[in-house]
């Protein structure tokens, strides 16, 4: 048994969460630094995972396996394929930025009496003793807890183990959404608190409902596997092997029902139209770093799980459902984009944009081509980074002005050019500008989709036009134009901490946009495995060019005019 790298990677933030939560109330800053250090250490470990992962090696690597709940056939089984490794890295990468960006988000109000929170009389009275209330510690501890749970989800090769963390991560997320909102709320503090808790409850109920449906399917899977294999198991490699060998059989309707149970849960998490309405609320009400955590990290578990579990365990049902899923994904792409255009709230706009992007990811997954799924995987990573960049800058912007409404801005570029510039880069990444990372993935998804479903691919391409629309409208309304409001005139540019958060993300966007090869090489074999699970092969081109990799072919090429090019 080698060193349990994955366990340690996932456990480190959990330990960090406990440690952070234990910091005394007065030492807020220490808690922040502690959390940051833990998240960075996790990042290092995740990088080690990525490095130690051998693309040419076994399908699941760095595996660990221990008995856990044998009554339920549950084992503590971890292992990463390329997709899991990449997403673990993404998670570990983003958390330090989330922490850095949210550095002051959970500070207690500096002066309770002057603050708009609640009735000053109430705040001032000694009856309310909140000295033991440690929001800052809680905030960072919860973030680390989410990280730990997400990491386990990405590494779990046991369906049950995955399910447990898939569900459990809702709880810290719930507190993060409901407990920590923006300082100022457009609708007033009372109303803001109400909307926040509405958003949190909606988030949790929606996802919990999905999770519970999945629970029914998980139980069903156990029953099916114990019927077929004699002993129920949740081990993914074991199930896949049994499926491939024909030992594990299930009736068509059973497979479809189980698939639906899993898929609905993931589609809610992802989120796929029409199960998306929790996302705008949650992202709108949460602070920007938490919104990033939701869309860039937690939601990825949904799409990841579609790829790993839905396709792997229920290939026939996946194929059966493909037309509908593609249809819904297509609707998501266009619907999300159109609604993003119609938003008046910056964060909700980004949320709808994310819905559109998740549509692309799901499109890529269910296109069942190497390009589509490879693109979808890259998309998950790149969308995480690009949304983080856009949303975090938006958060900085919002924290300066205290409003989420687009109409409250205008002309920021003039007073805060660096802020505007980074915002623009984030926006351009969101609209998949070539040269930035998301372009690569989006193009792959589109190519992959097109090559099997041309009409779907073409309609989805309209999404990139709409993406330009909502990003540029957002930029135009917030950043350009004359400065008309005094609040904006006084707006400071990005501070060092903020720049330190944004700059690496921007750099990564560019770097991965130009040179995504290391990542795609890690991902490719996993995608091939998944495709072989569903027994799909890429459609062949009609007129394949024999050796297109050889650039010298160019030199043999003679332009052929009507007359063969001979004009003399």
């Amino acid at each position, binding site marked *: 048994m080698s060193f349990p790298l994955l366990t340690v990677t996932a456990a480190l933030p959990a330990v960090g969460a406990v440690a952070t939560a234990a910091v005394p109330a007065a030492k807020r800053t220490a808690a922040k630094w502690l959390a940051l250090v833990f998240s960075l250490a996790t990042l290092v470990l995740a990088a080690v995972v990525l490095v130690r992962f051998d693309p040419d090696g076994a399908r699941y690597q760095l595996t660990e396996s221990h008995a856990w709940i044998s009554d339920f056939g549950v084992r503590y089984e971890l292992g990463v394929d390329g997709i899991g490794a990449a997403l673990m890295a993404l998670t570990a990468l983003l958390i330090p930025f989330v922490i850095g960006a949210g550095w002051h988000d959970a500070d207690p109000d500096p002066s309770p009496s002057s603050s708009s929170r609640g009735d000053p009389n109430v705040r001032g009275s000694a009856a309310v003793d909140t000295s033991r209330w440690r929001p800052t510690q809680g905030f960072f501890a919860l973030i680390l807890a989410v990280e730990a749970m997400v990491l386990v989800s990405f590494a779990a090769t046991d369906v049950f183990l995955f399910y447990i963390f898939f569900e459990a991560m809702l709880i810290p997320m719930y507190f993060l959404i409901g407990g920590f909102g923006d300082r100022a709320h457009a609708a007033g503090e009372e109303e803001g608190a109400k909307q926040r808790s509405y958003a949190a409850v909606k988030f949790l109920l929606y996802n919990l409902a999905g999770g519970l449906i999945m629970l029914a399917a998980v139980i069903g899977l156990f029953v099916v596997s114990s019927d077929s294999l004699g002993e129920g198991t949740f081990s993914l490699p074991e199930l896949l092997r049994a499926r491939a060998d024909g030992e594990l059989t299930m009736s068509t309707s059973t497979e479809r029902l189980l698939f639906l149970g899993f898929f609905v849960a993931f589609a809610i998490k992802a989120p796929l139209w029409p199960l998306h309405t*929790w996302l705008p609320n949650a992202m709108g009400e949460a602070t920007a770093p938490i919104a990033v955590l939701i869309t860039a990290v937690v939601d990825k578990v949904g799409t990841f799980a579609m790829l790993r579990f839905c396709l792997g365990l229920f290939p026939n049902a996946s194929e059966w459902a493909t037309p509908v899923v593609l249809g819904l994904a297509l609707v998501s792409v266009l619907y999300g984009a159109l609604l993003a255009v*119609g938003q008046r709230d910056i964060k909700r706009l980004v949320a709808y944009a994310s819905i559109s992007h998740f549509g692309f990811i799901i499109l890529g997954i269910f296109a069942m081509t190497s390009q589509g799924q490879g693109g979808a995987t890259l998309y998950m990573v790149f969308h995480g980074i690009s949304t983080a960049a856009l949303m975090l800058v938006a958060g900085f912007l919002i924290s300066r002005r205290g409003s989420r409404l687009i109409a409250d801005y205008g002309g920021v*570029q003039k007073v805060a050019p660096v802020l505007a510039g980074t915002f623009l880069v984030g926006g351009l990444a969101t609209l998949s500008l*070539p040269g930035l990372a998301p372009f690569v993935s989006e193009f792959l998804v589109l190519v992959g989709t097109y090559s099997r479903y041309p009409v779907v691919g073409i309609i989805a391409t309209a999404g990139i*036009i709409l993406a330009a629309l909502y990003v540029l409208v957002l930029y135009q309304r917030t950043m*350009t134009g004359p400065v008309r409001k005094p609040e904006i005139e006084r707006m400071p540019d990005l501070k060092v901490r903020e720049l330190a958060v944004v700059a690496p993300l921007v750099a990564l966007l560019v770097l991965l946009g130009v040179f995504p090869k290391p990542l795609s090489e890690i991902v490719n074999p996993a995608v091939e495995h998944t495709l072989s699970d569903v027994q799909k092969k890429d459609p062949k081109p009609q007129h394949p060019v024999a050796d297109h990799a050889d*650039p010298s072919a160019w030199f043999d*090429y003679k*332009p052929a005019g009507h007359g063969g090019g001979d004009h003399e």
Partner: protein
Amino acid sequence: MIGLLVGVPLLGAAVLLCGGRRLDRSGHWLGTLLAAASFAIGAVLFFSMLGEDAEHRAMHSKLFSWVPVEGFQADVAFQLDQLSMTFVLLITGVGTLIHLYSVGYMEHDPGRRRFFGYLNLFLAAMLLLVLADNYLLLYVGWEGVGLASYLLIGFWQHKPTAATAAKKAFLVNRVGDAGLAIAIFLMFTTFGTFAFAPVLSSAGEASEGKLTAIGLMLLLAACGKSAQVPLQSWLGDAMEGPTPVSALIHAATMVTAGVYLITRSGAVFNGAPDAQLVVVVVGAVTLLFGALVGCAKDDIKKALAGSTMSQIGYMILAAGLGPIGYAFAIMHLVTHGFFKAGLFLGAGSVMHGMNDEVDMRRYGGLRKYMPVTFVTFGLGYLAIIGFPGLSGFFSKDQIIEAAFAKGGTEGWILGAVTLLGAAITAYYMTRVMLMTFFGEERWRKAATPSPDRPDVEPAAETRGEHAEPHPHESPKIMTIPMIVLAFGSVFAGGLFKAGESFVNWLEPVTAFEHGHSPVSAATVTTATVVALVIGVGAAWFQYGRKPVPAVAPRGNLLTRAARRDLLQDDFNHVVLVSGGTHLTRSLVYVDHKVVDGAVNGTAATFGGLSGRLRRLQNGFARSYAVSMFGGAAVLIAATLLMRAV
């Protein structure tokens, strides 16, 4: 070496944009220097290319594998052949000149460093576009220039009009980009690759339907980038950008990328006559469209923009003719690059001296105050109208000839259209010339800023009050580029024509066939000249003989329509903008009320149900007993029933 061509300006952009305020004082020179360096590299490559024989001039260099996914290989690799070389020289050459010009033009602008950063970015992207060895990398450059164009049009972001124009340009271009993307999908599914060499060399194997589809999608892309009907609407608004930008991007280089794309993909179009026909039609329509718009505009830059559209229409038309036209399309592209850039720089120079006034009705008689500008502008003018002996004459004449050579009815129609276009070109350019440099000095009466530009731009404020302008010649740093370009406008055409040198140069890449025109070359030339004279004469009758009214007359229906860009924006507004607004608004409503409403409705249903069921719990022990008794009865009944069933 080829990579350096792209890398040098890219480095410049990176340094200038990330460098911060430290570079505010020297940044513009750095930018200019790097542009020049890029030109120098291009020149070196050009001469080394000349050293090879025609068949082996193409160079290829692969930097790294970009996106390797199973079955999908995209490399960052460059290919430099004669066609690319032509563009490289044009881009870096004109680009360097315009950098130089901008040093003067943007002297007082606080965002100068940023401006040069964007310019360098543009150069890099444009070079990437023409140097890419596959369509995907070309796509990168394609959108890259779109980005640069967006940034530069919206350079004065504080002006809402500029910001809107920038956004519009990007969006319209995106539509075209989508076409390019779909073209790439088609190539990938047809050929399994999208690198130039394999796609083009095996284009013949694919079915005509496929090729037509690819061709049409490429045309869509070209329409977006080159402002061809129906995606032409952004170009006029793009004139909100600083004038050097208009000269470089929206006249000389970027807008001609569509021509490059079609020419580059010649092998595809050659196999798809239907697509070619559409290309030709688009070119012809745009040719007339742009010309008409150019006739009606009083804004000097917008008039020139219309002209650009029209001239690119010529090029697209020529490119649509197939091997008989590719070379001429490119030739006209290059000459147009010279004279149109020169014209724009001249316009910029005029504006520079006129407090950024753009309304030609407030110009007049400026030749005395700006002699250098007048001369260079005049030479450009002569070139564009095709005055015999100057650049435009040679290149345009060839296109008209090739249009006739298309053959059949089509050929006649195209020939007529091109001739008509030549006449209109002469008309509107003469109009510009007369309104600007001749006639009475109307600016003396007009001391207020033009009504259609209500927003005061700080750049103008720094240059002086909006009092009566004091026209003056621009500084040397601005006039020198104009002079150089004027030389190009005069001589380039002749140089290219001499010994068919240009055609021979391009032939290995684009192939060439002599068209067989039903009318002789001399006849065509004569007709062209006649058209020219008619156009000039008409303009002189209208604007030269009598004073130009300072307020535009109402004009006839066509004029009014042309002033509004032939109602294209109205169309867009009604169909796309308000339609889209309604669509998004109703979708927002639907999302809130229907999709979300279903969720909240479910919650409310349970809540209501709960409230109702709750009332059963009425506190009376006896009613609880009733429930138990009833329950027991049901339990018994059900058990008995189960047995009965």
